[in-house]
C-alpha cells in the first residue's frame, strides 16, 4: 500500500498514531473518542435509521449519508462506557467525512491495521473497527445505487 492510495486525512491520522509510543497511542485514541460529535438533530430523533455494528463488543450504531454532490458523511453513536469503540468510530468519521463515495470505497480494508494499535488495544478489539469500515462501505454502495 502506497501513500498515493491513502487519502490525506486518513494518512495524517495514521502518521499521527505511528509517531507516538504505545501508551501515547492509547491517549490519542481517547482524544478521538472524546471528539466523536453528538448526532445532528435530524438524526438524533431517528434511531431507526442507524445500523448496529454487531461485530463490536459494545453497542455502536452508524449511519452514512451520501450527499447530492456525492460527498460522504459518517455519523456514529456509542455509549461513553465504550471509549475504544467511540474512538474507532471517531477516527472513521473524521477520516472518511468529506470524501467522495468512490474515495471511501477505495480506502484499503486494512486501514485499521495501519494505525499501529494492534499491540495497544489487541487485534481482537481492532476487528470492531474493520467491521465498522466494512459496513460503512456497504452503506455507501447502497446509497449510491439507491
Amino acid at each position, binding site marked *: 500500500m502506497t501513500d498515493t492510495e491513502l487519502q490525506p486525512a486518513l494518512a495524517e491520522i495514521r502518521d499521527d498514531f505511528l509517531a507516538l509510543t504505545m501508551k501515547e497511542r*492509547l491517549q490519542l485514541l481517547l482524544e478521538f473518542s472524546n471528539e466523536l460529535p453528538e448526532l445532528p438533530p435530524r438524526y438524533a430523533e431517528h434511531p431507526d435509521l442507524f445500523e448496529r455494528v454487531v*461485530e463490536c463488543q*459494545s453497542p455502536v450504531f452508524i449511519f452514512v449519508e451520501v450527499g447530492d454532490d456525492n460527498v460522504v458523511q459518517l455519523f456514529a453513536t456509542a455509549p461513553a*462506557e465504550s471509549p475504544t469503540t467511540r474512538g474507532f468510530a471517531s477516527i472513521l468519521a473524521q477520516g472518511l467525512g468529506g470524501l467522495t463515495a468512490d474515495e471511501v470505497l477505495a480506502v484499503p480494508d486494512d486501514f485499521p491495521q495501519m494505525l499501529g494499535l494492534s*499491540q*495497544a488495544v489487541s487485534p481482537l478489539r481492532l*476487528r470492531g473497527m474493520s*467491521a465498522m469500515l466494512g459496513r460503512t462501505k456497504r452503506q455507501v454502495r447502497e446509497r449510491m445505487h439507491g
Partner: protein
Amino acid sequence: MAVETDTSPKFAEYAHPDRLVSTEWLAEHLGDTDLVVVESDEDVLLYETGHISGSVKIDWHTDLNDPVTRDYIFGEEFATLVGSKGIDRNSTVVIYGDKSNWWAAYTLWVFTLFGHEDVRLLDGGRGKWIAEGRPVTTDETDVTPVEYPIVERSDVAIRAFKDDVLEHLERQGVLVDVRSPEEFSGERTTAPAYPEEGALRAGHIPTAHNVPWAKAAADDGTFKPLADLNDIYREGLGLNDGDDVIAYCRIGERSSHTWFVLTHLLGFEGVRNYDGSWTEWGSAVRVPIVQGSARGEHVSK
C-alpha cells in the same frame, strides 16, 4: 502486612469473606499502605476516562495474555507487570471493573495462578462505585515500582486443559457451561451482541449444566446473597461439597466469575476454569458435542 478484612455481615456468610470488600470499605481504606487497587475492564480505554484515585490498570488482553502463544504470561513477565504497578508479594490487591466485575474476576483468577495470596474483588465493581456518586479521576496514578519475586505459575489446581476436561467427562465430573442459552444450545457460537471469535462447531460439552454467569450477580453488579447462590448452584445443580467442577465459557473470562463464586463464596475446593473453553472445544477434532438445550449424555469409550 495485609490490610484488615471487610467485616460486612453480607460477606460473613460466604465461605471466604476476606475475598470481598464493599465500596464503603474501599472509600475508607484508599491510600492505605500495602493496598493496591487495580481496575480491569473489557474496554481497554475505560480506565483512562476516569478511575478510582490511586488505582492502576491491568488489561486482560494486552497485559495478562502472552502475545504469541495462547497462554498466560509466565512468572518473569508477571513479576515485571505487577512490580511496575507497585504491587509486591504481600500487597493487598483489590480489583474492580466494569460489567459486574466480569473482567476483574478474570484478573483475580490469573493472580491466583501465581499464588498471590491477598487478592480481593470490590463487590459491585466500577458500576456500583460510580452509581453511588463516588469520585473518579483522570489524574495519572503516581506509581513507585517495587520488586515482585519471580513465581512460577501453577496451573494444576484451578486451571483445566482440554485433556483434563476429557478425563473429567470419563469420571462423570460436573461441568458448568456459563454461556448464554443460545450458545449452549448451539444456535450461535458467540455471546449475543459479541464478535465472532472463531469456533467451527456450536453446542456444548456433553453433560454440562447451563448456568449463565450473570445469574450470580444482582442488578447492581454485586454478588447475590449466599442463600440465592445456594439455590442456584447447590439446589439447582445438586452440587455437593467435595465435587470436582470445571467451568467454561468462550475464552475463560465469564467462567472466571463463576469460578470465583463457587470457590470463594460457596467454598467448593475442586473448581477449575477451562480457559480454552468453547473457542478451543468448538474447533477441536473429534471431541464430543451436544446440541440443543438438553445436557446430553457422555458415552464412555
